[in-house]
């Protein structure tokens, strides 16, 4: 069953230049796709490929210039649907500093449910649970600016989880983190998906995309490829053409296969590769 569905979606940014002319830039050009309930989808593409714009269309922060975005059966361009859509599809942004509202961790996590008008006891329960889920419960009374990037990003994720959404869109959540922070955040994302939350991960790290059930490759506002990580990475040459790469373990496995070493398909991680080689 599809949860998010784009039908021939086009989005244009309008900008007025100094001379007063209106310039339009087409960020997304007639895109159609479906995201299944409970799935883990990665959207990859270079800077300017339209992947972030696409993400913002999924929870009505932006609405299509033409075409349709349907979330849980609701058209995002209909004004009455905006709040229900945002409650169902939460979003986590790239910069952890610029999305935390309050000077105390637990107050920030409570911000979403407070906006939804949830009862105080219920907010308390959700905040504790969300903070526990990202392993940040013991930091609940701390000030966010004293935490590391990965910790701040986990707080932002807890803030999204506390709204009890059915889907979370992660817009390059690891782009500003160090390798350790990236690991932590990715682990949290996988756990959430395992609990049944539909996950959309916008990224330009191939290693992260490799963990998804399905990858959508965007280039210059259109979808160039769509499929399982295995299917996508097999077309490595096309990815390189779009200035994207293939994860190192996948590339190594491909090269080894070419040299006659018998390896099964679907190797995405270093651990898996090592395991297969040791056999």
């Amino acid at each position, binding site marked *: 069953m599809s949860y998010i569905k784009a039908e021939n979606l086009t989005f244009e940014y309008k900008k007025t230049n100094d001379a007063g002319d209106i310039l339009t830039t087409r960020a997304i050009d007639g895109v159609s796709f479906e995201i299944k309930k409970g799935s883990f989808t990665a959207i990859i593409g270079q800077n300017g490929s339209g992947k972030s714009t696409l993400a913002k269309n999924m929870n009505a922060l932006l609405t299509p210039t033409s075409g349709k975005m349907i979330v849980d059966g609701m058209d995002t361009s209909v004004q009455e649907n905006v709040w229900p859509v945002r409650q169902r599809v939460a979003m986590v942004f790239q910069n952890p500093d610029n*999305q935390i*509202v309050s*000077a105390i961790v637990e107050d920030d996590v409570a*911000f979403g449910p*407070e906006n939804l008008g949830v009862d105080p006891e219920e907010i*308390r329960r959700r905040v504790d649970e969300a903070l526990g889920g990202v392993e940040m419960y013991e930091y609940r009374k701390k000030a966010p*600016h004293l935490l590391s990037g990965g910790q701040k990003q986990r707080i932002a994720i807890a*803030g999204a989880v506390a709204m009890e959404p059915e889907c979370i869109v992660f817009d390059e959540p690891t782009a500003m983190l160090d390798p350790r922070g990236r690991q932590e955040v990715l682990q949290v994302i996988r756990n959430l998906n395992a609990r049944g939350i539909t996950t959309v991960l916008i990224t330009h790290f191939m290693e992260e995309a490799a963990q998804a059930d399905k990858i959508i490759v965007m280039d210059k506002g259109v979808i160039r490829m769509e499929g399982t990580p295995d299917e996508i990475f097999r077309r490595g040459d096309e990815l390189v053409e779009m200035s994207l790469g293939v994860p190192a373990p996948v590339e190594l496995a491909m090269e080894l296969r070419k040299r006659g070493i018998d390896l099964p398909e679907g190797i995405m991680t270093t651990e898996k590769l090592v395991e297969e080689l040791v056999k």
Partner: protein
Amino acid sequence: MIRDITLGQYYPGNSWIHKLDPRIKIMATLLYIVALFVVKDFSGFIVAFAALEAVIILSKVPRSFIWRGLKPVILIIAFTLLINIFMIKGEVLVQFGIFHITKEGLLTAAFMGIRLVLLIIGSTMLTLTTRPIGLTDGIEALLSPFKKIGLPAHELAMMMTIALRFIPTLLEETDKIMKAQQARGADFESGNIMRRAKALVPILVPLFISAFRIAQDLAMAMEARCYGGNLKRTRMNAMKLEKRDLAAGLLFLVFLALIVLQRILM
């Protein structure tokens, strides 16, 4: 280094005073300041001092923190004292040249000095024992009756909350910009005051731009989390008055009554 600054000057604690409802504390502080101006002689200050001392002991805030709050204003106090000592006419005690110290001058100076010190310590106790968020929530609640005449109480409190949250972020940003410019040879440390002030202008421009960018990001993040003003908002820590708040309120009324009585009787 820049990350260690404390917000406001809250001293974390779990005392009776810390646990009081922020609304009670804000109102009490305001009325305490008014009471200090009601007092007209030294005996009134004894009552005011005793009340403040009781609050300090109950709050368990170390005295060094309280002194720290007083330090920045010591110059102002000293200046007030000097002006009063030398300018007030009356019975001359000491005379040198055109300067003379009068008995009335000394008394008024002492009186003003005590009033100022009590006033500053009194308001410091509010910020020392109340979390910044508690303060903004309290102010929002106290201002909400004025919503009827169009005062945006919730919006004001939200602005204060966000400002508190972003002070450290903007300080970090400033630090980053300064380091980036120093790396390219900018000099912030030498020259006279004018030159140093001029050197700060190139920091302000990128800082403003980055503040606008942060504001834009934050607005989008808030929208994504369904923020739509105060229409149907609830609060996780809804403030409600406990027994101790009523007790504190009553004790404070006793204090006010004592001050007023003293003024009438003396």
